[in-house]
């Protein structure tokens, strides 16, 4: 999957998991803030999104700084998922 395809998939997941009926996935930018400004999500949305991402991509999402950084934007999320999955499948290290 190309980074661009992963970005589209994450946007779709955000809209579905958070039931954002009024939001067109294509209208979410790769770099806009998801929380506070931008999509204006809150901390309960973050929990829901974390659960959805953990389930869809089979990655461990814990409550640490790395995760908080990852949830800043779609691009950060894509990089986080790509890195976690690479760590889980390659190099013999568990991605946690």
């Amino acid at each position, binding site marked *: 999957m190309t980074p661009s395809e992963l970005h589209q998939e994450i946007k779709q997941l955000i809209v579905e998991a958070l039931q954002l009926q009024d939001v067109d996935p294509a209208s979410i930018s790769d770099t806009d803030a998801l929380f506070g400004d931008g999509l204006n999500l809150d901390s*309960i949305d973050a929990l829901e999104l974390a659960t959805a991402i953990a389930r869809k991509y089979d990655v461990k999402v814990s409550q640490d700084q790395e995760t908080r950084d990852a949830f800043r934007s779609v691009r950060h999320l894509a990089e986080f998922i790509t890195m976690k999955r690479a760590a889980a499948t390659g190099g013999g290290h568990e991605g946690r």
Partner: protein
Amino acid sequence: MTRKVALITGASRGIGAAVARTLAHDGLDIVLTCVHQRAAADAVAAEIRELGRQAWVAQFDVKDAERSRAAIEQLLAQTEIHVVVNNAGVVADSVFPALSPDAWHSVVDTSLDGFFHVTQPLVMPMVRRRWGRIINIASVSGVNGNRGQVNYCAAKAGLIGATKALALELASRNITVNAVAPGLIDTEMITSAPVEEILKHIPMKRIGTAQEVADLVAYLASDKSAYMTGQVISIAGGP
């Protein structure tokens, strides 16, 4: 539209049993929890099934984190839960200088730990469903204070604080969180209370019934109260 399910803690008797019957009458299926009075809870469940509703009885102590979590998980494997009524509560009155650690913890832990243990696992499913009702049975004692009940007043005031904070977190998901603050209600809890003395201070000059409290809870559990959250409603025969 699927039928809604309400979980009521401490539902074997008193206000909890009245709430269970009333919500069943309104068309909800009911989960009753009890800690000691299993036979009484089973009898309420049987009445509810007579109404054509489903009823489950889960026996566990809401103070016990592990058992509460296990019991709720087991229930959630069988049914969704749309409404939770945190009703389980105990009193152990004593003037403060003589209040034992046991009397403090049994009362505070049942109300506050019980609220936490039972409600938390039900919240994210409500968030995902974008609908939920959380109703906490507090007390006018938690609003006004009452001699000999420092433990009970602290527990109920704590529950009121939790109600207001959780209401803010969940409001945008169509989940309301409200507290009911009953005054003197005709249940086993008040058998040792000085009723004659207290009646002098109740404007309506009578004690309330569990049914009157249950009818208020039924309103808060329904769609009719959708725009109301974070409130504490006294039902005490006077302001």
